[in-house]
């Protein structure tokens, strides 16, 4: 991992709420409401990060939101985020163009257990925009493919038009060392893939339940249902990891907006073992 220069690190300690200036260097429309932005810093080196971490993205004059990093940890020079327009700030981010300035704080939070997954089978299950925070795991695993057992990605989307990273999905599917299953909730006449929920595809993928790490990212109900299904297939709850979101504001475990039971998700999460949160995921109001 590349450490930031002493000046940047010191500034983060002294002024943890001060964003670093970045600039959009590339923009790609993924779907009607989702874009992937590449950003590069104006003031020094890029951000070294662990897959699963997030940054706080600040659109000057509008506001700040937490967004998971969707780029490759092998290329920390370029910060990549995939953002869906769901509110005022994300709408502004989606509207950014190449050359536009943006503020970035972070990276923050816990990452996916990629190191723990070495020597084991890896099952990634993503739903909707949840593929974006899992993409860095795939980059990391594929960069050192020989260190892992069977690797599979199961991805569910609302419709074919909502699928993220279409070109990459085709490339990933063509690999012999990666099993990729994709399904949609609602098909159209041009769709020749699967239709149905992601859990329906789990019986098709190969993994040894006693030696598998699974990482789930998507709507909480989806993750809960998938985690239960994986448990039924023999995975230990400690080997199932989920990424949770709450209303993160400060990202430094100070404001408490992202409190989820005893955890501050900005610091203790967003990635947590399912065993740690399974009971809480059934509590209304948390």
């Amino acid at each position, binding site marked *: 991992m590349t450490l930031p220069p002493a000046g940047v690190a010191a500034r983060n300690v002294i002024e943890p709420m001060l964003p670093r200036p970045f600039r959009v260097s590339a923009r790609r429309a993924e779907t009607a*409401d989702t874009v992937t932005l590449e950003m590069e810093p104006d003031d020094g080196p890029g951000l070294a990060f662990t897959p699963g971490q997030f940054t706080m993205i600040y659109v000057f004059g509008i506001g700040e939101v937490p967004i998971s990093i969707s780029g490759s940890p092998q290329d920390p020079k370029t910060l990549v985020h995939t953002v*869906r*327009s*769901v509110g005022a700030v994300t709408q502004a981010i989606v509207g950014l163009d190449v050359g536009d300035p943006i503020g970035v704080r972070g990276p923050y939070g816990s990452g996916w257990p990629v190191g723990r997954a070495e020597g084991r089978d890896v099952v990634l299950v993503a*739903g*909707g*925009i949840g593929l974006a925070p899992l993409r860095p795991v795939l980059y990391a695993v594929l960069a050192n493919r020989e260190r892992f057992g069977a690797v599979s990605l199961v991805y*569910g*989307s*609302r419709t074919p038009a*909502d699928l993220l990273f279409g070109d990459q999905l085709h490339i990933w599917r063509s690999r012999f060392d990666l099993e990729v299953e994709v*399904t949609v*909730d609602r*098909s*159209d*006449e041009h*769709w*020749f*893939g*699967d*239709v*149905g*929920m992601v*859990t*329906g*595809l789990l*019986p*098709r993928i190969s993994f040894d339940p006693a030696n598998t790490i699974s990482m789930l990212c*998507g*709507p909480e*109900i*989806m993750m809960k*249902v998938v985690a239960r299904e994986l448990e039924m297939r023999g995975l230990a709850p400690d080997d199932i990891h989920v990424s949770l979101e709450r209303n993160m504001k400060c990202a430094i475990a100070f404001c408490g907006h992202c409190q989820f039971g005893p955890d501050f998700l900005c610091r203790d999460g967003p990635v947590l073992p399912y065993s740690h949160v399974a009971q809480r995921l059934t509590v209304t109001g948390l």
Partner: protein
Amino acid sequence: MNLQTLRESSPLLAKLSNTELEFFESVSSVVGLKSGEILFEEGGAADTFYIVSEGRVGLEMTSPGKAPMVIQTLGPGDLVGLSWFFAPHRWNWRARAVGDTTVVAFDAAEVRRRCREDRDLALEVLGVVSAELAARLHRTRIQLLDLYKAP
């Protein structure tokens, strides 16, 4: 086709004893389907049921003037068709191969007859079909929540 090879992926075949499996084998045949070929039509007699061996089968609802709507796809090991087990034994959906597909077809009338004679077998089959119904209902309920929609 030797049904033993399908046993691992098929919840129905996995439940059967060797004797029961031999009976199922005696009323089965392998069917190869080209992509787009129709396995059964909505409203038709459910006198055969299937287990996917290779490929995929889509369950579709049709409507005049509209493209068929696929509501679910079934893959290797999955049971295609549940209506064969319940009166009036009529298909509620159309089933069509999505890509080149191989299925094993079973004579549903023979299996029902055997179930009437052998209550243990009937209970096993009922258990599997009910579990499949419950799983499909569960998934359908989750799909109805439209979880991937923008908040």
